[in-house]
């Protein structure tokens, strides 16, 4: 699980050869607390597969969230080849995220 910042986002996500699932969260957000462990689990389950996982604290980083129009948290954006291809807002079922990830890395 990568800790993403406004500074490393270009290198870790936009320049990444693998797709990246980014979890935009903040410590004060209840639903984010539910999704945090889900994304951690996914990161473990997809270890070794061609996909990366990262989380960005929107309280500490504002340039990237605003660039990608994040106005609700948790928001999850799937990046591929430096571009956002899917975006999910709010609590998501783990299976749903799995399905989207599987479709992307096949």
């Amino acid at each position, binding site marked *: 699980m990568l800790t993403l910042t406004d500074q490393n986002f270009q290198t870790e996500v936009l320049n990444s050869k693998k797709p990246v699932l980014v979890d935009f969260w903040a410590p004060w957000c*209840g*639903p984010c607390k539910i999704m945090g462990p*889900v994304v951690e689990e996914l990161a473990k389950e997809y270890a070794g597969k061609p996909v990366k996982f990262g989380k960005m604290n*929107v*309280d500490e980083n504002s340039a990237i969230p605003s660039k990608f*129009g994040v106005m*609700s948290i948790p*928001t999850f954006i799937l990046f591929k080849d430096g571009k956002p291809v899917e975006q999910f*807002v709010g609590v998501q079922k783990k299976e749903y995220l799995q399905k989207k990830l599987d479709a992307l890395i096949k």
Partner: protein
Amino acid sequence: MENLIIIGSGPAGYTAAIYAARANLAPILFEGTEPGGQLMTTTDVENYPGFPKGITGPELMVIFKEQAERFGARIMGEIVTKVEFGNPSPQPSPIKGEGANGNSPPLVGGVRGGGFKVWANEKMYETRAVIIATGASAKRLGLENEKKLYGKGVSACATCDGFFFKDKTVVVVGGGDTAMEESTFLTKFAKKVYVVHRRDVLKASKIMQERAMKNPKIEFIWNTEVVDVLGADVGHVTGVVLSPSPQSPPIKGGEDLKNSSPLVGEARRGGTSRTLPCDGLFAAIGHEPNTKIFSGQIELDQKGYVVTRPGTTMTSVEGVFAGGDCVDFKYRQAVTAAGTGCEAAIDAERWLEAQEG
């Protein structure tokens, strides 16, 4: 077969789990689509006894969960998608006749407590008893553009998203406690908060009303509805369309509020409607019970709330109990939900005991 399955993870579900676990029923609790329930999106809970300094909703729910786990409740992240209460599978030694008390109708299928089926993630669980604690969820306005702009200025969680509206203008729809709480909270960030309410009086409690009324950043817009959200073309909310509420003052031929489909909104707009530029929209217009999966399985009232037998938490089906906001449309408090969750666990425990004969 399980002894007890609890569906829902708000104060009612977790309290039922605490009591049932302490009664050695080893309950399973399915958390569902909104783990922790409505309190996960609230700010400070100032009226839950035992927390004189207040506690945040999410913190309170973490403690509830810990307490349930401490006594051995099995908490599962799955979502219950289907239940079958009516046709319990045959049991080896069926007993006929009455349930826990003489006045109850005969046991469905005449089986020894349960044989109820609950599906979570395609997996079927059989259980002797069930507690429904699925609560209620916030209603949305039901506008097409509201859906399109969800997460782009339209928010379902003021505490999560208020932060994104620093020095911006937001609209809160509603006149109850939630609307007052959210508007007051949003003034921490927003430069201006409009509260749009379809009546000319608030339903909110006095203390919440006063707090909002005193706040210089909050302005009330009375007798008005939001009939459209603008900004879908640019990808974020730029404003809302307001229209006089048909309810108050009454307009001849005015449609019922429930019928405020986009088309009706469109039709209403002529002349009297106006655009209010804003960056965010929060709806706090009440709740609806999360009981769709129980339709046809137990008795629900017209609005979808679970009907329980007078003086107990038992539903129309023996062995199926219910507590919290899926039953209660009147009080709807964390502490009352916890209270009825406790009742449901005690009722379930006694009923299961009675089945042992």
